[in-house]
């Protein structure tokens, strides 16, 4: 099993890419969250120059951010700078779209988008719907070498539910999952394998990557302590942010029997301004930091139960279980401002 890291994209994330490469990580995944972070392709360009082995991936790209030809072009460009080292992670848009008060994109739109990007990178002509009309498009002079369309750019879909997993199998592409709990993640991969088989595919052929967010606890350290809270707290907080937006028309799920911390968060959320755009405050610092007003709710219990936080031996057991279940890669988020945590993760990975 390979290991990777993921980052809230910063202008200087090339430094992290370089360190990750030195530590033997297989890949670095850059979030595409335009309201929160830096641009992934700009940063992947800089990272391409600073590295020579590590894979550079969008983790994950949101279709509605750029028209499909631009994304194909960006991938071809980075592929020219880091030949054969580029991966195209894509999803229907959670963080990036919620930060604009939008729900995820339709799966069918993501499917078409992937097909257009793929066809363009294969130097094919394809019909693409834009501004209300179908248009035939292709790269007009890919042979010039201004971009690289020779080396393949593998597609990875972030697929959390059965339908998206079916699409992943249908499109014959790799899979990304987000680790929540070990049982949940093992159930996810079982369903993904089911989807591959249902689609007539061999599950063993595909990359299956689990994104994790957490902290390696030291001897006697608690999940609620400062260091763990800085590294894992921002993601734990997201579970509460998520609950605030249930029932606002963006999401179909409704949480049942609300836990105390969710109820308490509602009190905080009630004061967010402006009233018609509370998401602007709710998602500030998303997966990067814990805000002062929510800090008291982000405790050890929440962090332990919702993130990849435990002592090294416990985490090693979880990794072993993920490996045994067939995951080909586990990535660790290096939380904004917690760069030194990459050393902990490298040590953990090396121990497996």
């Amino acid at each position, binding site marked *: 099993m390979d290991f990777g890291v993921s980052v809230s994209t910063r202008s200087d994330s090339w430094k992290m890419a370089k360190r990750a490469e030195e530590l033997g990580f297989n890949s670095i995944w850059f979030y595409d969250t335009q*309201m929160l972070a830096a641009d992934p392709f700009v940063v*992947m360009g800089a990272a391409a120059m600073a590295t020579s082995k590590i894979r550079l991936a969008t983790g994950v790209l949101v279709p509605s951010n750029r028209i499909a*030809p631009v994304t194909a072009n960006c991938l071809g*460009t980075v592929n020219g700078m880091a030949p054969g080292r580029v991966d195209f992670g894509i999803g229907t848009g959670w963080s990036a779209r919620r930060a604009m008060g939008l729900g995820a994109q339709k799966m069918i739109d993501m499917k078409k988008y992937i097909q257009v990007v793929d066809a363009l990178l294969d130097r094919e002509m394809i019909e693409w719907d834009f501004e209300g009309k179908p248009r035939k498009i292709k790269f007009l*002079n890919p042979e*010039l070498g201004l971009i690289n369309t020779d080396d393949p750019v593998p597609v990875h879909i972030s697929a959390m539910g059965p339908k998206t997993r079916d699409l992943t199998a249908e499109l014959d592409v790799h899979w990304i999952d987000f680790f929540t709990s070990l049982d949940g993640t093992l159930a996810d991969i079982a369903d993904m394998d089911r989807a591959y088989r249902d689609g007539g595919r061999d599950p063993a052929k595909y990359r299956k990557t689990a994104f994790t967010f957490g902290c390696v606890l030291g001897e006697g350290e608690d999940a609620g302590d400062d260091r763990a809270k800085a590294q894992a707290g921002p993601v734990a907080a997201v579970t509460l942010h998520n609950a605030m937006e249930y029932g606002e028309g963006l999401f179909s799920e409704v949480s049942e029997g609300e836990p105390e911390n969710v109820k308490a968060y509602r009190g905080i959320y009630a004061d967010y301004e*402006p009233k018609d755009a509370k998401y602007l405050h709710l998602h500030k610092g998303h997966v990067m930091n814990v805000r002062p007003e929510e800090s008291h709710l982000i405790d050890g219990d929440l962090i332990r139960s919702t993130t990849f936080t435990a002592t090294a031996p416990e985490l090693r057991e979880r990794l072993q279980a993920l490996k045994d279940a067939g995951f080909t890669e586990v990535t660790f988020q290096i939380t904004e401002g917690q760069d030194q945590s990459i050393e902990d993760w490298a040590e953990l990975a090396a121990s497996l």
Partner: protein
Amino acid sequence: MDFGIAVATSTNSWKVVQRAEELGFNHAWFYDTQLLCADVYAVMALAAHNTSKIKLATGVTIPSNRISAVTASAFATLNELAPGRIEFGVGTGFTGRRTMGMNAIKLQDMEDYVHEVYGLLAGDTVETTMEGQKRKIRLLNPDSGLINTKDKIELHMSAMGPKARQTCARLNAGWANFIGDINAANADLQDMQEAWSGAGNTGDLYSTAFALGCVLADGEAFDSDRAKAQAGPLCAVAFHNFVEMEERGSLFPLDPSLQGTLDEYKKLYANYEPADAKYLDLHAGHLIFLRDDEKDLITGDHIQGMTFTGTVSQIRDKVAAVRDGGYSQLTVQIVQGHEDAVEDWAEVFKGM
């Protein structure tokens, strides 16, 4: 007068930009043409990394390629890599959209887009329309150091017609103009100056003239292989534009002396396939190289009339004419595969 270079964006553009900086050029402009070139923002990252003084500008970016927030984030990302050296060239999309069989976007849409991008960079909450819904958005953590929104990013607009020039003046933007014939270029500038003062702008207009050309050796013909390669693509673009004139309008009036060549172009065009997407063949190599089928149609007369081609002293006379006409900057495109031409141009501009 400032001098700049423009490039058909390529993964290796940073090398010629680095050389241009050494030679004392002030600006490098990168085209945003997703089906022809490499991605402008990713390539600017490499240029930022490898230079320290030269200004790096999109030349010009197309609003419909990316949502405004992605463009704001991309600029702010670059602005951290090259603080205060990033400039925002924008247009309604001629090349970038014609290659997809589309007309330019509406001026009003471009203007709204520019306001959104600058609003976001200023930390304001702006209203955007996405997927038919109005949404309030803002950059949620501009002070986190992931991006740089502090250093100013100058605006330049490509404006060929009277209405576009009014928009340019209203935006208080620098003005970018493609030039060939000197008298026409200076007349354009006078029009622009009138629009500028008509809008009540008190500061000076910053105007950039874009040209293609070739510095000829003693006795070298205007239709030498070198001249055709370096200057010919602009002549071809004029005809690509005229071929689509009935369907899409023209950037400039047709000089009757060009009718014969246009008729030949139309014969070629009649055979382009597929019949419902002739733009794919028509725009292949657009502003990059002459296609085999059009190579013989572009003559020494075209090159002499439409480009900055001649001996050093002949070109210096032209440069002096646009300088005396009031242009603030002259930018020449360095054609892919002819990067050495940057040395010729440095020689021409030396001491001007």
